[in-house]
C-alpha cells in the first residue's frame, strides 16, 4: 500500500518520464524526419511538464497577487501562491522549443527540395548512390 501511495504521490513525474521516452524514441528510432521533429517537441514539452510540476504547491493559487491594482499590499503569505520561478523558466524554454522547431522545419524543407523525400533511409540510399 505504501508503494501505491509512493507512486501516486509522484504521478506527474511518472507521466513526464513516459512522455519523454515517447519523444526520445521518436527522435532516435523513427525513420521519417517529420516524425523526428514531432518527437523532439514531445521530448521538450515533457521537460516543461516536469518543471511545471515542481512549481505546484498544495492549496496554492496562480502567482498573481490578488489585491493588486495599486492598493497597499498586505503581508503576503508565500504558501498561498504557486512558485513562479519554474513558470518563468518554462516560458523561456517554450520559446526555445518553438525556435528550434522553426529551424528544424526550415531544414526539412531544404532536404525535401534536395532529395524529394523525407524518409531517412531513402535519403541515405540516394547519398550512397551519389558516392557510387
Amino acid at each position, binding site marked *: 500500500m505504501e508503494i501505491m501511495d509512493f507512486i*501516486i504521490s509522484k*504521478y*506527474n513525474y511518472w*507521466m513526464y518520464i*513516459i*512522455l519523454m521516452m*515517447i*519523444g526520445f*524514441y*521518436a527522435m532516435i528510432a*523513427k*525513420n*521519417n524526419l*517529420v*516524425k523526428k521533429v*514531432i*518527437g523532439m*517537441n*514531445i521530448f521538450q*514539452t515533457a521537460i*516543461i*511538464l516536469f518543471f*511545471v*510540476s515542481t*512549481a*505546484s504547491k*498544495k492549496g*496554492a*493559487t*496562480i*502567482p*498573481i497577487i490578488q489585491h493588486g491594482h495599486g492598493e497597499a499590499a498586505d503581508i503576503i503569505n508565500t504558501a498561498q501562491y*504557486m512558485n513562479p520561478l*519554474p*513558470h518563468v523558466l*518554462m*516560458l523561456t524554454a*517554450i*520559446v526555445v*522549443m*518553438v525556435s528550434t*522547431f*522553426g529551424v528544424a*522545419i526550415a531544414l*526539412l*524543407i531544404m532536404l*525535401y527540395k534536395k532529395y524529394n*523525400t*523525407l*524518409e531517412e533511409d531513402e535519403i541515405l540510399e540516394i547519398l550512397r548512390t551519389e558516392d557510387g
Partner: protein
Amino acid sequence: MIWQLDILLLIIVVICALAAISVKDLLSSAILFGAYSFLLCLVWAEMGAVDVAFTEATVGAGISTAFFIGAIYHTSRRTKD
C-alpha cells in the same frame, strides 16, 4: 488541483503523443500534435501555471501547427511509419 482530473488529462495527453508519432498521415500527425499541445496546456492551466499554459496555447496549438501545415504542404503528406 484535482488529481483525478489531472491523471485523466495526462493519460489523454500520452495517448495523443503516441498517436501523433504513429499515424501514417503527416497532416493527421500535425493535428494530433496540436491536440496534444492543447491538452497539455489544459494540464498546466489546471496546475496553476497560467502563463505557461497561455504560451503553450498560442505557440504549441497555434503557431506550431501552422508551421507544420505549411511545411507539409511543401513536402509530402504520406510516410511509411
